């Protein structure tokens, strides 16, 4: 937990924050509306004697009273995806419509890809990319279990992703769920901080900026890009936004989310960030007993 000390100056009620980070995370699932509905899933859990509780901000997201949601009928049928509560936020913020063309730049193992597909009602073209082939095979099997048929899977470095196989046309929307230092997943993976170093934070921040820039370039004017991480480090969050709004044609816009959050910060260890990064959301584990998360919405302006 040592690396978290850095955040004492920016997190309100820091002790509650630390306590929450030390508690294990409840099992959660998201209802897959391509194959089922909240009513049917909850009826099936009731039939099996598995307790469930819906999230306040989204009735398709629920915590379940079992350590192994994978061994239930709703999971077998592809009616649910095992997915941390906050991990359902980015697709809701991106808010894709049926029939659109959407790019998921860092997609494996596909929790958010399959969520996007469901919001698109399994129509349009959803390009799911990842540079790790092994992780892509996990994405493929999740997408197949959930019955997703609108996904095209690519194995590229997102930083220089080519639109060529897709008619050279920019996308309507892009999700940028980058690799990160994962501090916010400590409740699920208690060994998260064994590998932590400030050097790693800085090096992964370079990759994040490259991917986010490419996503803005690959999205049409007026289109939307959502940036998400599961970490608290401002180097990987607000600093990435500050960089991309300076370098590319885009701006940070307000989000309409019903989940308790803190605004993005405009100052960190002597660096100042553009005021608009306040529109981003920082979600801390003690707010509603979830993992830690960061999400921001960008509009492409040219």
């Amino acid at each position: 937990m040592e690396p978290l000390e850095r955040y004492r100056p920016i997190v309100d009620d820091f002790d509650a924050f630390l306590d929450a980070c030390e508690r294990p995370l409840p099992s959660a699932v998201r209802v897959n509306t391509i194959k089922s509905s909240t009513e049917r899933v909850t009826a099936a859990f009731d039939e099996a004697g598995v307790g469930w509780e819906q999230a306040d901000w989204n009735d398709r997201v629920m915590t379940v009273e079992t350590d192994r949601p994978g061994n239930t009928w709703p999971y077998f049928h592809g009616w649910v995806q095992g997915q941390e509560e906050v991990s359902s936020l980015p697709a809701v913020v991106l808010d894709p419509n049926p029939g659109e063309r959407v790019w998921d730049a860092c997609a494996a193992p596909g929790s958010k890809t399959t969520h996007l597909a469901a919001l698109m009602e399994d129509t349009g073209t959803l390009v799911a990319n990842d540079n790790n082939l092994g992780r892509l095979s996990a994405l493929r099997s999740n997408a197949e279990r959930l019955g997703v048929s609108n996904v095209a899977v690519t194995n590229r470095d997102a930083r220089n992703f080519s639109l060529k196989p897709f008619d050279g046309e920019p996308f309507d929307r892009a999700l940028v769920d980058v690799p990160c230092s994962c501090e916010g997943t400590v409740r699920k993976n208690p060994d998260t901080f064994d590998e932590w170093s400030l050097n790693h934070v800085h090096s992964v921040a370079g990759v994040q900026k490259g991917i986010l820039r490419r996503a803005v370039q690959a999205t049409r004017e007026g289109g939307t890009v959502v940036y998400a991480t599961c970490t608290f480090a401002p180097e990987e969050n607000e600093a990435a936004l500050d960089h991309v709004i300076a370098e590319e044609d885009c701006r940070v816009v307000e989000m309409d989310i019903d989940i308790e959050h803190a605004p993005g910060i405009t100052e960190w260890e002597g660096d100042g960030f553009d005021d608009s990064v306040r529109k981003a959301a920082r979600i801390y584990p003690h707010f509603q007993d979830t993992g830690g998360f960061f999400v921001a919405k960008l509009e492409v302006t040219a």
Partner: protein
Amino acid sequence: MSDEPLRTDGGRADDGRTNDGQQFDRLPETPADREVEGRASRREVLDWWDERFGVPPETFDGVTFWEKGAGKVWAFAGDVDSPIRIEGLGLTFMRTRQEHWKPTTEAVQRFGADADRNVLRLSPEQAERFVAGEDQELDWDGDWGYLIAAHEIAGEDAPLGVGLYLHGELRSRIPKGRRREF
């Protein structure tokens, strides 16, 4: 398939790991449009689902079918040009180029809810054995061959996957990675 266009961009993988041998070709509309020998046509695929399971052709409006590798057909709801060399396109749908065509468990779960022919309804205990991958003796007076195994859950039928019925026995064809023991 000597008339394939020569691709020069396929090897430009940024990390060197992209498989060059992957190509999806869209199925021809009808047998008369066929250019590649042995390739199934969309019409034959739709007729097969209709005849075998009573799944109406409209179920697949907006879905295109693609072949990658010999006989493996994929169902895709989006829009891309054929051919395309990428890792995946929609979901694996069925196996053709063999005497008895075989749907995938994914296809049966996704598109088989409206099936009204060759659907074998299992008891709770039979359903558990089926998804564990076990074969079981069972009476069935319908057709032999590939069929849809289903069970009742939360008050409605739900397709479980593909079974092969032969000589009084139902063989589970649930893929290894999807088997479950409850």
